[in-house]
């Protein structure tokens, strides 16, 4: 009976909407099965955590009040008075961090399996754009509770933007809505966080997923080569892969619930723009490697300011990653590319080591 009902609903819809793509996804889409299949789940996990952010974020906007006089108190109200407000807020904060983590794993697993190669260059570029958008989400959202840590982290972060040659000062004024981090910055970041970035994400993410559906899942060159001799093992996306995705998502829900209940995100002390920066101020972990690198660069390297050099180096690094599908000629030919793989490993090692140094080095605690 229920199958008949389902068929009737599908027929009704088909008379009005072309369900070809959906049918293809359910009936035809397959996922390669090989020793790197595990990495395929991280894209979906990032998407799930993003959906969590959207849902919890919408719930938070029901109570959050942007503005230097009210922001902190509204978050305090959410944490103490709103039923399960503490849970929603903590999940939102923890999920943001987990999302950045899974996104980094997704990015580097795609890089190391050379999934950026032709014909998936646009998928890679939109993916890199999404990475930048997610970091901007994290940076803008971090200020919204308006506590001491978030105020000074934003001051330091926007100061770094000021090191961009030529446009640095104008960029800082644009980001802050003035010379310093004030209530104007908070309003600006709030608009960015709940309106501009979600709109941009919808567009880019939509295209990114469209390209993934269009082109299917990529396999590493060595797997593709082996498939020329023996047919590649695959599993249907629906229901096999999707069930596994669901398994991961439910596990993520469990992890988020445990983190929110056992380590609720702290409120901190209300920001005081006139107070000096507390000792040991540092950014969130996903910016830590950049922060730590800037600490080690001397004030002046020849005629150039150390910080400017650092910012330029990060810019060049980001540009390298963005353009890697066009730089890696071997991958474009479908061959293994050890040189780019080792560069990728080097980048991962650098990020991990410098993030660890940020917490373990003297003056880092």
């Amino acid at each position, binding site marked *: 009976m229920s199958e008949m009902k389902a068929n009737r609903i599908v027929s009704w819809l088909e008379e009005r909407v072309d369900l070809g793509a959906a049918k293809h996804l359910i009936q035809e889409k397959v996922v390669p099965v090989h020793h790197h299949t595990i990495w395929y789940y991280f894209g979906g996990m990032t998407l799930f955590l993003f959906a969590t952010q959207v849902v919890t974020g919408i719930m938070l906007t029901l109570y959050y009040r942007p503005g230097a006089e009210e922001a902190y108190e509204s978050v305090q109200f959410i944490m*103490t008075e709103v039923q399960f407000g503490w849970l929603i807020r903590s999940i939102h904060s923890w999920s943001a961090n987990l999302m950045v983590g899974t996104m980094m794993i997704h990015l580097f697993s795609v890089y190391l399996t050379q999934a950026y190669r032709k014909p998936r260059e646009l998928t890679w570029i939109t993916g890199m754009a999404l990475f930048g958008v997610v970091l901007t989400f994290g940076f803008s959202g971090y200020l919204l509770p308006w506590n001491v840590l978030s105020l000074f982290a934003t001051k330091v972060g926007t100061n770094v933007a000021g090191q961009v040659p030529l446009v640095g000062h104008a960029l800082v004024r644009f980001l802050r809505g003035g010379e310093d981090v004030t209530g104007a910055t908070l309003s600006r970041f709030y608009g960015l966080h709940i309106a501009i970035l979600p709109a941009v994400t919808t567009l880019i993410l939509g295209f990114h997923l469209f390209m993934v559906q269009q082109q299917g899942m990529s396999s590493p060159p060595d797997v593709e080569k082996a498939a020329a001799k023996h047919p590649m093992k695959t599993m249907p996306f629906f229901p096999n892969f999707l069930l596994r995705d669901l398994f991961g998502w439910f596990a993520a829900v469990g992890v988020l619930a445990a983190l929110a209940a056992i380590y609720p995100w702290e409120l901190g002390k209300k920001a005081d723009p006139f107070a000096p920066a507390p000792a040991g101020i540092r950014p969130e972990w996903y910016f830590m490697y950049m922060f730590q690198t800037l600490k080690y660069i001397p004030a002046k390297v020849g005629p150039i300011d150390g910080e400017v050099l650092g910012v330029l180096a990060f810019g060049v690094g980001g540009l390298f990653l963005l353009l890697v599908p066009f730089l890696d000629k071997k991958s474009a030919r479908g061959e293994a590319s050890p040189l780019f793989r080792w560069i990728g490993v080097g980048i991962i090692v650098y990020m991990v080591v410098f993030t660890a140094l940020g917490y373990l080095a003297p003056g880092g605690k």
Partner: protein
Amino acid sequence: MKIALRVAVFGIVVGAAGMCHAPSAWAVNACIDCHKNLKEENLRLPAVKINDDYHVVRGLKCQDCHGGDPEAADKKEKSHSKDKGFRGKPKRLDIPAFCGRCHSDPSYMRKFNPSIRTDQVKEYYTSGHGKRLREGDQKVAVCISCHDVHAIRAIKDQAAWTYPVKVAETCGHCHADPKYMKERKIPTDQLKKYKVSYHYEVLTKKGDLSAPTCNSCHGNHGATPPGVDSVENVCSHCHAATAELFDKSAHKEAFSDLGQPACVTCHGNHDVMKPTDDLLAGGKGTPCETCHEEGSAELKKAVEVRALIGGLSRGIEEADAILTRAEEAGMEVGLPKFELIEAKDNLIKARAESHTLKAKKIKVLTDPGVVIAQKTVKKGHQLMAELQFRRKGLAASLLVIGAVLVGLFLKIREVDRRGRS
């Protein structure tokens, strides 16, 4: 011929340069240039120390204090000539006048600092040190005993002997030396006592430069121990509110009648400790037993006051403890902590009010504080209960999620098996 002419002109120019006197800047250093090469330590040291002297920073030179001719390099008779106003090293008895030649001259000192005091020498001669010096006793402090000589630093300089943190050691240089002070009939344990006091802790460990040191109570140039009648005035200079409350108590008249110094009788002087509520107990070992008998009506009052203040203090401690537990467990305690501040303020006021010994007035402060503390304790318990609720909720939801995961795992296995077959 041309070459010879050029050599001759060159020689004349060099010779003329050699015969010229050095500009005055060089001549000013003649005193130092000579003295720094002398073998005698007492003559050489001033030339070395002078680089750290504040007078030099303000543009003064050796001759401004000692006179003489600074340009007469290598000619002692000329540089030390009395005709050139040479005053040399003053006798100890004459040191205040020597320094006062400038420091007591308002029109001279105005050039450097229009608001600087110029009555130090006058004040000095009212002090115990000054009076004895006038009588010919040279074993007393003079200007250089506290300010150093040739390396005199500004008071705001952290290396100055008169910098607040260093004052006690400067005074103790003499006053804490039993051998040096043996002819005097005053104790030499003041520095030792002061170093265990709360005032010393606040000054040196907490870095509060307004905390009292020797000169705060004894004066600087007019240093004299405060008399019995004036101790309260000295303490009330900082502890004004407490002094005002003390004046309303029965102790004010009683201490005056007994010739006992206020404040010091209960709190001590050099070894003033941070007062605790035990001072209010009135039992053995407290200052109260000096005058009051055990079981007297006055001591019963002290016990009542102690009970009021102790009750509030314990309530606040209990509230603090439970909020700390809740905070460490991850609960948000900002608001209850903020509300508890009012109770803590009431406790401070009640402790100050204890100087009046009026239980009714103290109760007016302690009762609302106790109510706030109790409310906060209740809030703390609610937070701990909420914590338990969250943990139980987490356990329940993890069970549900676990069940779903098991279901999904079994479904995945089934679907895979179906796919293989």
